[in-house]
């Protein structure tokens, strides 16, 4: 590739196009962030300027902290996302290992059965899921959300992890068997560490939709104690629609944790996605 001479004009065009799109992508986020630190007057008079000593204020954030329990929402979102990811990865990897490693009657059928869920959105079962949760007394608990998200994430997790587990060398596993390792130890000690990149991919693909979901929190856990950050900010903004300082601050509060997590993990995220699982 390095031998080819790149047309500098093309390259300049690419930079112009990419910078333009980057501005489009970031503009709304930046507008929200800078205006959340400005007084109401400044928000309306000069929405595109940075806050200065005259217009700087934290009044919006004060309202948010007084009126909404954002720490609680954040904690709920964290618990739901992390626990769901844990179960998706554990159960998914176990099932993927069974499908990839052993030949047994019904293996293909089981694989197909588990793959149906990739194409069919779990939302279509909402009516019945709600009835199950009501019957089980799980409405307004984080457990309900964790169970649903685990079921939602499993099909794709199993599909991707099984592909990767087929690539783990048989010799290694057979060597483990000769050394007297049980099938469980082979799975946990030999195979799992080898498919870590695939696990990262699965985690990334599941994390964003779980964190951002509005449908299931709205239906299964709308109570104050179990509101996730997404639902919490939706409700808060709905109540404070005319208080622009509060709305902009609430939006910023919802943006910041995700942005920080994303910037910390963006390297792993890109590597996960580009590692070739979804070619």
């Amino acid at each position, binding site marked *: 590739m390095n031998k080819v001479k790149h047309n500098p004009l093309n390259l300049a065009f690419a930079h112009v196009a990419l910078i333009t799109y980057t501005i489009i992508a970031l503009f*709304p986020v930046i507008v929200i962030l800078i205006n959340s630190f400005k007084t109401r007057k400044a928000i309306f008079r000069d929405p595109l300027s940075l806050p200065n000593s005259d217009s700087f204020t934290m009044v919006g954030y004060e309202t948010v902290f007084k009126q909404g329990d954002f720490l609680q929402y954040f904690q709920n979102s964290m618990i739901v996302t992390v626990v769901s990811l844990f179960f998706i990865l554990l159960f998914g990897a176990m099932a993927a290992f*069974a499908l990839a490693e052993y*030949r047994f009657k019904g293996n293909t059928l089981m694989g197909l059965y588990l793959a149906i869920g990739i194409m069919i959105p779990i939302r279509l079962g909402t*009516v*019945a899921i709600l009835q199950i949760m009501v019957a089980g007394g799980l409405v307004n608990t984080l457990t309900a959300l964790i169970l649903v998200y685990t079921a939602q994430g499993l099909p794709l997790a199993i599909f991707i992890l099984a592909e990767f587990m087929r690539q783990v060398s048989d010799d290694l596993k057979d060597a483990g*068997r000769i050394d007297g390792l049980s099938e*469980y130890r082979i799975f946990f000690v030999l195979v799992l560490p080898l498919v870590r990149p695939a696990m990262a991919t699965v985690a990334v693909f599941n994390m964003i939709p779980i964190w*951002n979901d509005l449908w299931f929190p709205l239906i299964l856990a709308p109570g104050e104690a179990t509101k996730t950050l997404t639902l919490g900010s939706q409700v808060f903004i709905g109540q404070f629609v005319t208080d622009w300082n509060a709305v902009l601050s609430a939006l910023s509060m919802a943006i910041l944790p995700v942005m920080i997590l994303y910037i910390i993990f*963006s390297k792993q995220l890109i590597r996960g996605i580009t*590692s070739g699982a979804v070619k």
Partner: protein
Amino acid sequence: MSTQDRPKRRWHIVIFLTPAVLVYTALMIFPLFGTLRLSLFTTVGQEQIFIGLDNFRTLLGDERWSNSFWNALKNNTWFFVIHMIVQNPLGIAIAAMLSSSALRFSSFYRTAIFIPTILSFVIVGFAWKLILSPLWGIAPDMLDAVGLKFLFKPWLGKEEYALTTLALISVWQFIGIPMMLIYASLLSIPDEVLEAGECDGITGMAAFWKIKLPLILPSIGIISILTFVGNFNAFDLIYTTQGALAGPNYATDVLGSFLYRTFFGFQMQLGDPNMGSAIAMMMFLVILLGVCIYLFGIQTRMRRYQF
């Protein structure tokens, strides 16, 4: 497989499979059948009475229902069309530019353009609602700065623009996904193939159209079907910007918001789980139809190259 020699000790397979199969069956497959069952019943007083396909007859035959249903399906289709003609070509173009080896700062562009994708619908919906609001005036002021103020309309409030505006907001949010997947598959094209093309004098744009594009067609297929399934499930963005009524005058009603309104009710109308289930089953059929067209009509005809 060595385990075949020891058929008696294979219950570990059961242990490996059980948790996943249990959770998946209980909360995914079983509820789907539950929805199917509910859609065949109606509630009279406290009792569920079997009425066969009557709910579907009402949904498609009774004008009050069928108008809403076809309106939602039509809007949903337009929503999908906008994604296919804006999001995916734009995503491919950005990925193609990013994958050029001579481009600097590509990881910065990649990170920045992916940021909207990580944000929740609530943030995206309200942020755009504020920016497009005639009250705040960011959008009209910016158009004014380039002398195009006459172009400004309250886009989210007008029936004829609202749906397209929402679709474009959704494109803005999700463009990161086609970009990343295409970027990954462009990177996986071996250098030898491109070098062989160069020897034959195929470089630059020609290399993209003649070598890279045919090679990434399977990824484009996957993106299209992901977009299809995602779009026909859309609800969150419409709910956060336009509310459950999907205004103005149902101009932005899609199948997801129609389902939500029917199931939970709104304002004066009571929720109806049975009709809601019937709508969910129609969504299921639409998605199944799309997936089948893709699997049997498109995927089997696509050529795959192995390196």
